[in-house]
């Protein structure tokens, strides 16, 4: 159970407070409702590039990190398809420094050509390090456009291609800031050893005078229902063949989401899972085989990703996955299996609620989803999933007409 209070400043900034007296730290988590799905398809990678620029100094602060470090703090951020999330941790008695820094960069950024040039190059190195210079690093770059034809989840957060980042201009980034970085498009969570009164006072002091901005919400196109199987084949300089199968699943706020989350665990999580025992161990067709859901706010993907054992034929490997899916649909889930994933989920939720930061992130995210109470009720939602729910999700969604398959062949053979 995470206790919290929520209030809104006059300028539209949503504030969430959570008191945790067991820590000596305090956390500020600022979630901006802007992710790669809000980008122009011709200028992708901007939300993430912008995240880098947020550390380059603001209206009244030349060195964001320097000031924070001087007060004993640390910060970081991440960008996803749906959102950009900034967080900082400080000794609780120095938290006002955090309020100063976060409010100032919400007020106005110090954007100039030189800073942009540097961060563009840094992001290009990040692109290379994570996507181009890693074995199988480009899998995601291939799978997304296959699965999404219309919806902006079709490009990864880092950007569709390097040229989009290379082409970013100072006007582009200024426009991006003006458009998305305002109090009425943000959620601030204050979590840790800080009283509600102090939280409220500091929020008023530092954030209240930041002007609200009008902005036109981005219209996000809905992905049409997939009607036929999709396939793509690539050859890459990797030692082993790989296969990815991605199935469309409902949005995070759809009741069926929970059963899909369970399905991914039942099939692929850990040594008691079906795929591991049947396909990795018994038939030894894969050296690694994972099943996971993409975890997006809107309609996402359930992904099966495997590396084939050497000399195993790609189509045999795929067939074995399909057979297991059929068996799963036919047999359904046993009472023990269902209890297992429920117990696992309870463990995950409890272990995830252990730090002021993870609680701040969860509360902010649930607020973004439109229901902050979810932070406390999702455990019950998971417990309510029945074997029938799972069967229904599996039979309607884990079908080839709803699937994009990437055959990723090794050139090294």
């Amino acid at each position: 159970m995470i206790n919290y209070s929520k209030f809104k400043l006059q300028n539209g900034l949503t504030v969430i407070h959570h008191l945790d007296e067991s820590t000596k730290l305090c956390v500020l988590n600022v979630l901006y409702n802007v992710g790669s799905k809000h980008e122009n398809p011709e200028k992708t990678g901007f939300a993430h590039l912008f995240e880098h620029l947020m550390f380059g100094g603001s209206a009244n602060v030349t060195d964001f990190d320097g000031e924070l470090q001087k007060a004993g703090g640390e910060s970081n951020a991440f960008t996803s398809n749906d959102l950009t999330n900034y967080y900082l941790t400080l000794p609780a008695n120095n938290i006002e420094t955090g309020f100063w820094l976060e409010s100032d960069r919400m007020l106005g950024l110090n954007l100039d050509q030189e800073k942009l040039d540097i961060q563009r190059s840094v992001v290009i190195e990040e692109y290379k390090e994570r996507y181009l210079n890693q074995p199988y690093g480009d899998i995601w770059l291939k799978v997304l456009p296959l699965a999404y034809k219309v919806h902006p989840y079709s490009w990864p957060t880092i950007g569709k291609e390097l040229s989009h980042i290379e082409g970013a201009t100072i006007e582009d980034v200024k426009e991006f800031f003006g458009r998305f970085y305002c109090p009425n498009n943000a959620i601030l969570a204050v979590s840790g050893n800080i009283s509600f009164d102090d939280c409220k006072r500091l929020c008023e002091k530092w954030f209240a005078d930041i002007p609200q901005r009008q902005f036109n919400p981005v219209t996000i196109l809905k992905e049409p229902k997939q009607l036929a199987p999709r396939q793509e084949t690539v050859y890459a300089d990797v030692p082993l063949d790989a296969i990815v199968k991605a199935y469309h699943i409902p949005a995070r706020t759809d009741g069926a989401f929970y059963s899909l989350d369970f399905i991914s665990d039942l099939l692929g999580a850990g040594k008691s899972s079906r795929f591991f025992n049947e396909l990795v161990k018994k038939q030894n067709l894969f050296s690694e085989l994972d099943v996971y859901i993409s975890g997006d706010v809107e309609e996402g993907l359930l992904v099966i990703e495997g590396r084939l054992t050497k000399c195993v034929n790609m189509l045999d490997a795929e067939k074995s996955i399909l057979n297991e899916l059929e068996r799963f649909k036919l047999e359904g889930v046993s009472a023990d299996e269902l209890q297992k994933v429920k117990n696992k989920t309870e463990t995950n939720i409890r272990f995830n609620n252990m730090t002021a930061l993870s609680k701040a992130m969860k509360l902010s995210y649930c607020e973004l989803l439109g229901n902050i109470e979810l932070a406390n009720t999702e455990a019950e939602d998971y417990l309510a999933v029945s074997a029938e729910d799972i069967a229904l999700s599996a039979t309607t969604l884990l079908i080839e007409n709803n699937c994009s398959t990437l055959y990723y062949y090794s050139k090294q053979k």
Partner: protein
Amino acid sequence: MSLNRAIAPNSAEIKNFNIIEVQKIPLDSGLDLYYVNAGNEDVVRVDFVFNAGSRNQNQKCLASYTAQMLSEGTKRFSAKQLADGLDYFGAYFSAHSSADDATVTLYCISKHLDSCLPFIVDVLSDSTFPEEELKIIKNNNIQRLLVNEQRNSFLLRRHFYNTLFGGNSAYGSFATQNDIEKIDRIGLVDFYNKNYFGALRFVLVSGRVSDSVISTISKYAKTPHLSNNTVDKSQVFSESIEPQKSFIKKPGSVQSGIRIGRKMFNRTHKDYRELQLLNLVLGGYFGSRLMKKIREESALTYGIYSALESFREDGCWYIETEINHHLRERGLTEIYNEIKKLREIKISENELNTCKNYMLGSFLRSIDGPFSLADRFKTLHDFGFDYNYYYTFVETIKNARPERLQELANLYFSEKDLSEIIVG
């Protein structure tokens, strides 16, 4: 009065380092049970620590494969039954070995502890290492090794530790395909009998540790097998090798991985804590000189850092980065130049002050929550320290002087002592 945003809010001295200390309960079996009670959630982590690291092996891979195979079958349960049993209660099990020891860990919700522990006790006293399971794990690991050998970061690490400590030493050895193939059941059973069976060093429990958690663990820890009755073995930890430069060509790589470093003393040395601060200045945090120079000014990389690593018998210090391969030479020049600046120019009071505060804040974060507290205790225990070590650490950092850091840079960051590995 309107707000003056140009002025930073006052920040206070970072203090309040009263660490929640681990408590000790000696059990009848002679074993020490340690626990730290903290946090708000009814969860526990139980670590079983053994003298079963690669320092205890006489053939490569024995320690890591024994750890990996512990839960692959016992006299009572098959691998699947063990996995089902633990997963059913929502528990997580992990077993891994390092150079110095091996740790078997159970994470679970407190109410399920009593149901989960019998599986762990079984794994620690009756593991059978089935041939069939071993074959699969070996095969999968060989394939994983093939993939890892395509990664700059993996190749860098392997060559670095080989270069520093020697390919046959406890701290420098990495498994080859051939080493993996040579592993057999007999070797594992023998390693298990010598280093797990009756060789538990201690049990460390963290989380919301109630009386009932303690009594549950004591009940199982009484099993005669789970007691501590071994003496540490020793072997070659590191060989004496001259610093070297090596280049590993990796065709098609669009970045060059770089690791520069040397052997260094471990935590027990009197200069270690000040050296931690000096390392922080150079590459130990986001605002470090290397990050500022190589990333934020020159944009040659996504990230660069430096680190001190402390093993029980030795240690090392290194800088690592992946850099735009067209600009590799420039990157190397800049890196060596930053090290040189530490030797030649005294750090300013202002920068030193930032580093001190960051380090103290970072220490405060590292003692936040039960699991962090357990990790800090493990470090103390490994090196035979008590909690004064940390309080002295705080004082040492607060009192560190620019002259002293420059002196340390001249003592320990000499270019002639550094090895350099480049991949790509």
